[in-house]
């Protein structure tokens, strides 16, 4: 009996040790990233989001050529910028943009997702100072989303974000687009039929789209 429990104990001890070890194998870093992304979906406070960002930054430092960690850091920083202090906003948006530019040079990165993120970044810049920046950046928002769509017409994110942005611009101009709900329905179908190109590839946006449809469109 004693002999049986000893190997079990040792086995469990080894397991504890293994949890803290790192491995350069791609499976390992993909798993770490998958785990970190799962955790990121559940957090709400600024500090917790920053913690998720930091976890992903650590995964990035293990393999700088793996493009997805830097992509997600940039995406999360841009998302954070909407509700963070004005002083911090400038610094994180600058970092987000630098990351996107570096990633565009990485041959392994998904350019459609990057241009989507770049358009999203410019949208965040507009919200930093709408009166001044709206005029300066609105074209960059639209052209980057369009670039993303041209590169990958199956990508639902830039299509949805473009519809959202055009709707906001119409609102600013006092107009209303009656075709919005049809466009959003098409986006919903795009999301449903979208297949990410690899593990951990971006899939965000669907939740926000469904919530927007619920709020703005009468269900027939």
């Amino acid at each position: 009996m004693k002999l049986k429990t000893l190997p079990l104990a040792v086995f469990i001890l080894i397991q504890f040790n293994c949890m803290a070890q790192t491995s350069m194998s791609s499976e390992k870093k993909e798993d770490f990233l998958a785990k970190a992304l799962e955790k990121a979906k559940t957090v709400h406070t600024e500090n917790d989001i920053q913690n998720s960002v930091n976890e992903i930054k650590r995964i990035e430092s293990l393999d700088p050529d793996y493009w997805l960690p830097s992509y997600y850091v940039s995406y999360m920083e841009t998302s954070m910028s909407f509700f963070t202090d004005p002083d911090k906003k400038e610094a994180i948006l600058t970092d987000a943009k630098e990351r996107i530019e570096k990633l565009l040079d990485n041959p392994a990165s998904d350019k459609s997702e990057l241009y989507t993120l770049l358009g999203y970044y410019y949208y965040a810049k507009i919200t930093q100072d709408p009166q001044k920046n709206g005029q300066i950046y609105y074209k960059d928002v639209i052209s980057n989303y369009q670039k993303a769509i041209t590169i990958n017409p199956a990508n639902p994110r830039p299509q949805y974000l473009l519809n959202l942005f055009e709707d906001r611009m119409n609102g600013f101009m006092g107009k209303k687009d009656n075709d919005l709900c049809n466009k959003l329905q098409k986006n919903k179908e795009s999301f449903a039929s979208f297949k990410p190109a690899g593990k951990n590839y971006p899939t965000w946006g669907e939740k926000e789209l469904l919530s927007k449809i619920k709020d703005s469109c009468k269900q027939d």
Partner: protein
Amino acid sequence: MLNKLFSLSAILIFSVVYSQTSITGIVKSTGKTPISGANIYLENTILGDTTNEQGQFKINLEKDQTPEKIVLIINATGYESKSISLDSNAPLVLDLGNILIDKKAKSIDEVVISANSFSLGKSRGVEQLNALDVVMTGSSNGDIMGALQSLPGTQKVGEDGKLYIRGGDSNELGTYIDGMHVFSPYTANAQDTPSRGRFSPFIFKGINLSLGGYELEYGQALSSVLPMETKDVSGESKLGINFSPLSVGGGGTLGKEHQSVSFNLNYTNLGLYNRIFPDRYTWKKDYSNFSGEGQFKNIFKDKSQLKVYWGYNRTDFSREYNDINTLQSRDLGLAENNYYLNTTYQTKPKNGLQYFAGLAFSRVDDKYSNTQVSGDAYNEAQQEIHAKFRLRKTFSKYYKLTAGAENFVRNYDNQYYLNDQKLQNQKLNYFISAIFADNQLRLHKGLYTNISARAEYNDYNKSSVFYPRLSLDYINKRFQSSLIYGRYYQLPGNVVLAKSNNLSQEISDQYIASFSYDNHGISLKTEFYYKKYSNLHLWKDNEYTSNGFGDSKGFDVYFSDDKNIKNFKYSLSYSYNDSKRLYERYTETATPSFASKHNIRLNALYYISPIKTYFGITHTFASGRTYNNPGLQGFNQSKTPVYSSLDANASILLGKKVILYTSLSNLLGRENIFSYRFAQHPNNNGFYNNEPITASRNRFFYIGIFISLKNNSAYDVSNF
């Protein structure tokens, strides 16, 4: 069984407790403020923590597999990274106490020194005004040169419309597109009718007017430079048209991800307009101007960029001119063809190194008829080929070098005919070669210096000159201050050079002190300057000499606010200038007639949301300008009354694809006198006949509509 379970758990608990280490600490800035959200982790692992509001962190790690060397990395956005090596034999609970990290210093590439310059648009990292502001300023009607006159340091010369800066003549400004020189940036002007900039403002992503003390990448400009950068490859296609009672135009772009071709055509004819709103003159041939421009842009696989821009401009008019000397009239006419071609190639910065090469061709052919007397003709052809090479290398965050070489080849030819007989033919051919080196250094956090030099040789007078430039700049988040000294040279204009053969390069020594403050949409700038001119061309004893001289001193103050009142932007600028010169045909030292002492401009732009309209209003005030009354002692001893003009414009967004623009200049209808023209000889009563030089019409009303036929973005009037 229970015993075994107990001992098993004991082994597990024991191993967990005994093999865990924790590292704690508090991260603070050097100013002792705790930093939250910082990332602390062990190098090459994902083990780490994020600091909380108090800057505290705690990392738990298994002692058994902690690496030989533990390196702790601390990263916080906006701060320098820090790494701390720890002894792997460290105690189980390690408290590192306060860890201080420095704020990140800007890399030398990111620093933008804004002393002495104003930028429109998005180049140079300075985003003060949008290119749309060019259209919506006062009554510029989309004229870049007109819009720049709303900035401080510029002096109003209404009859001419060109840019006069800080007591400098209009030819003391060098205009550049994508780093290449534009020999003739203005349209031709009829006597007393202002010219305009030749380029549509919408082809540019950035317009950076430097009021003085400019970088030595440029030369041959005694006062200032206007570098403009065209937009990059457009990923989308566009097509648009525009028309007004005096013009019709259209253009478009065929754009792909890495390549785009654009064109813009415009035809202006004042005939119809003059019938509805006649001006003071009698036009024999209505003023007409045709302009066509195009650009090809390509981004290669290695992200280097090639741009080819071409522009053609033709002006034609003939006007009845009453000669004050002969009291007879003749039909003064001008036909001008202006050609411009500009090709540039720039690599993407790699390891801090970037190359640029460019070639530009400018040619202006002017044919004047009945210029001095009826039956005469004056033809003038000017040509310039500009070749330039430049490299930029950022060595570290402390030092950046910009160096290069350029060459200008100029040809000039004028002929004067009287009744088809050639009475004069002057030709001129020369070249100017230059090399320059600009060293930008970071001395200390926020303190920069620039030490530059430029050497030039020209084969007109076969001599070399040396330009030095030194500056000391202090930059912090909201405040900048600069001290600049530079020596600049310029050969006199072709017309003067063709008449002489031994003139020196003209010199201006500039001393500038500048202060600026930018915070939350408020911008305040003050600049003091002193320009000493020497070797100016001076007409003496029937020839030009280089014995002229002069000086110009003053200060500019600029205040703008584009954030604090909703939908409202305004700016106020005041310039004081005291100039004296002895040059050209002056008989004694006097204040030049283009240099008014006080210039005040107020600009306001308001957006009325319910009617989707931007209203702009500009008030310009300038003190009297000097002019020469030959009947009185001295030179330029007389002064015009003050200049005052209230201009308004409105841009109405009629729809996503239609914009209506309208403007009215000199709303109050004040009759502004720019100067006086005197007869050369007194009349029979010993009195010099004279006439005031005023605008061709008291008020100018303009209305134009811009329609986008194909454009994926809304409210975009640019076809490029």
